[in-house]
């Protein structure tokens, strides 16, 4: 036993040295999509004269909001904090929570998959970009991080070896999956002039239990409490997916919706059916919208949000989609507390 321990320790030490040498050749790809986390944190920490409208979610929000329209139509400063579903909802919530100021409004639009499984596959790449974000990593993510560590190590080692061999360690990031694809609010706009791929990539749910849905809604309720303690507000906004996708996954989405309707305390701004759009509004995945889709979705949001923030300006109805999956009328916010919507605490009227 002693011999095994000694040799295993010696072997481990050799590997630590080799690893350290390889790591010294590694440089982080600052043009990568997730490198935008630096810019988003800079937006979040920047002083502001106006209350802020902070968008939180995965890429359905990064590719789903036209913040310029928000900035124009609402007296809020929009900040789109969203990056990727794999960052994990719990991490996203911690990230925004620590930076909230009185009067801020959080628009929370998690992907449906957050309710059925732990999504944390992109946390390691995120931490590589911004190690300071480790403070937001919830303990429940640790098993997932350990599960992904070997594969991520592979990525790092390959990049180091390319550097050692004198080749560029990273393939240049291309729009829209690049840091430069984001605009000054944090929305992805790099695909606005690009041609839509011929088909949308996969959408699905792994095995899940109803308990997972309940646990996530409970977590959101606790987040709501903490946000209110900071004199800010949070609204829930269903993600936009194609109507055909909703039909295909109706059973799971109905379960999520039922649980939200039953127990969630956060006011809900729309419903899954009303959040759907025709296929031509989608870019490359079932969550990523084109420019037209982003703008339309944002207008739906503004219309739903107005009753809650005491504004009465009409929203343009132009660009409304036509046939397949045309969204219905934007419903009033629902939810346990939203039947009598609380009025915003720090709302200003839109300047004339």
């Amino acid at each position, binding site marked *: 036993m002693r011999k*095994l321990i000694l040799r295993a320790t010696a072997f481990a030490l*050799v*590997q630590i040295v080799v690893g350290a040498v390889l790591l010294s050749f590694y440089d982080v790809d600052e043009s990568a999509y997730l490198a935008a986390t630096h810019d988003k944190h800079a937006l979040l920490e920047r002083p502001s004269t106006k209350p802020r409208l902070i968008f939180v979610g995965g890429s359905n929000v990064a590719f789903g909001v036209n913040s310029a329209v928000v900035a124009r139509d609402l007296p809020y400063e929009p900040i789109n904090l969203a990056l990727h579903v794999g960052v994990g909802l719990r991490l996203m919530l911690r990230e925004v929570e620590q930076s909230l100021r009185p009067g801020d409004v959080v628009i929370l639009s998690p992907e449906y998959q957050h309710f059925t499984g732990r999504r944390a596959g992109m946390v390691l790449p995120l931490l590589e970009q911004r190690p300071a974000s480790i403070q937001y990593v919830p303990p429940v993510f640790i098993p997932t991080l350990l*599960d992904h560590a070997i594969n991520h190590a*592979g990525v790092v*080692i*390959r990049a180091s070896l390319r550097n050692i061999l004198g080749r560029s360690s990273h393939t240049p990031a291309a729009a829209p999956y690049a840091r430069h694809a984001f605009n000054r609010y944090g929305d992805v706009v790099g695909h606005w002039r690009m041609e839509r791929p011929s088909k949308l990539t996969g959408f699905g749910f792994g095995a899940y239990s109803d308990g997972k849905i309940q646990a996530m809604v409970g977590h959101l309720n606790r987040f709501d409490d903490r946000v209110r303690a900071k004199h800010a507000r949070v609204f829930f906004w269903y993600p936009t997916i194609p109507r055909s996708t909703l039909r295909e996954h109706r059973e799971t989405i109905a379960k999520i919706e039922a649980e939200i309707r039953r127990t969630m305390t956060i006011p809900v701004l729309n419903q899954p059916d009303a959040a759907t759009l025709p296929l031509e509004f989608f870019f490359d995945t079932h969550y990523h919208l084109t420019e037209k889709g982003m703008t339309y979705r944002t207008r739906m949001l503004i219309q739903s949000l107005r009753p809650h923030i005491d504004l009465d300006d009409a929203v343009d109805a132009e660009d409304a989609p036509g046939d397949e999956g045309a969204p219905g009328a934007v419903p009033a916010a629902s939810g346990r507390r939203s039947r009598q919507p609380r009025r915003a605490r720090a709302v200003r009227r839109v300047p004339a």
Partner: protein
Amino acid sequence: MTFTTLTFILYLPIVFGLYWSFKRQSARNLVMLLASYVFYAWWDYRFCVLMLATNLIDYGVARALARVEEPKARWRLLLISLVSNLSVLGFFKYYNFFVESVAAAAGSVGWIIDPFTLNIILPAGISFYTFQAMSYTIDVYRRQLDPSRNVIDHLSYVSFFPTLVAGPIERGTALLPQLASSRTFDYRNAVTGLRLIGWGFFKKLVIADQLAIIVESSYSAPDVARGPLLAFATICFAFQIYCDFSAYSDIARGTAWLFGVDVIRNFNYPYFSQNLAEFWRRWHISLSTWFRDYVYVPLGGNRVGRVRRAVNLLITFLVSGIWHGAAWNFVVWGALHGATIALGTLRAKPAPTPAIPGGEDNIPSLATALRMLRTFAIVCLFWVFFRAESVREALGILKLVAVDAFRPRAYLPLLDTVTDDGLRMAAMVMVGVFVAVEWLIRDREHPFVVDRMPIVLRYATYTACLWMTLALTARRTGQFIYFQF
């Protein structure tokens, strides 16, 4: 907990240290039992209760069998164990398949039934531990095994974490005596175990996970893929499932060696088989022998005439197909293997299985090479049914492969797929190297036979293999394929 993760790499030394820090076997078995339940709870702790309940029933039944002599009473006791195990397996794995099949059959005669399906999560490894548990009570019933007196030993046997989730399905006759007897730490066994674990990591992370990307991209939309690409993806799947599953078995065996326990070897170079019957003697050996001993032999085995033997083979493979998955494509897959082997039995006396796959010569005769290639081609053909989502989809794939075979333009997507990613090309090279290495070491269990090397060179070899494995690791890892069974 999955073997090829940092979680397991950190977990294993903790359990190893705890296990060997105790002198008494009972304490070591208790450590093993707790470690196994933590390992299993990592997926879903609720299913630990399910496993514990069925295992305790089996323990009770086996203890009762030791006291009862009357045949009918013994049969009733065995029935309790079989029903408890099979009903759990049936509910979690086959309920939806059953009601959907009934509804489809009723619909075909115009009787419309809305099937009441359930959103059931399949407990990891249920087919494996259920079969392991059933073999225990059957062996006790047959008086081939004395029931375990110690409940901890029994629970440790059924939930033995190295083999818990995807086998090898270890028999009580082999494992229980090891758990009940004194184990001493053996340096050479531990080193052999670590080498097997390393070989398993390489096969899973470098080959299986890389090939999974090619297979998934073609099989996720077979209606838009071209025939040559689908044929290539099927060959890739043949190596993916082999490297995936044999990797799991290697890591399981290696881990067991670390704890001084020997478990059955599950793979013995199956793709060098010269006929399908030999393939099944080399592929998933623990399951094949399980079905041989508990299904084929009770049906009559080799003691009956050729026709009856062929029918028995067909039945055994049908059951094996349904064991793999609750879907008709698995049933067809099993039936195809069974029918092919059964036909072979009818035609000629089975050829003996060579001790060394492919024979002793490193350059095989042309006839041997052709027989190996023919067997591999048949296995690949049948894998289409295993990998496809349905029988209809599998038939569609085979049709596309046949129709596109003589269309030169249909080969273009195949070239793109292979050449558009450096990592994928590296995986292709690795498959070639892997086959060559397997051929050269087919009289041994793994390639790390480096004992005669000087220690510095040996460490350098290990280090190079470790970092090469990490460098070629896929960007994402999938669960082991057999977890779903």
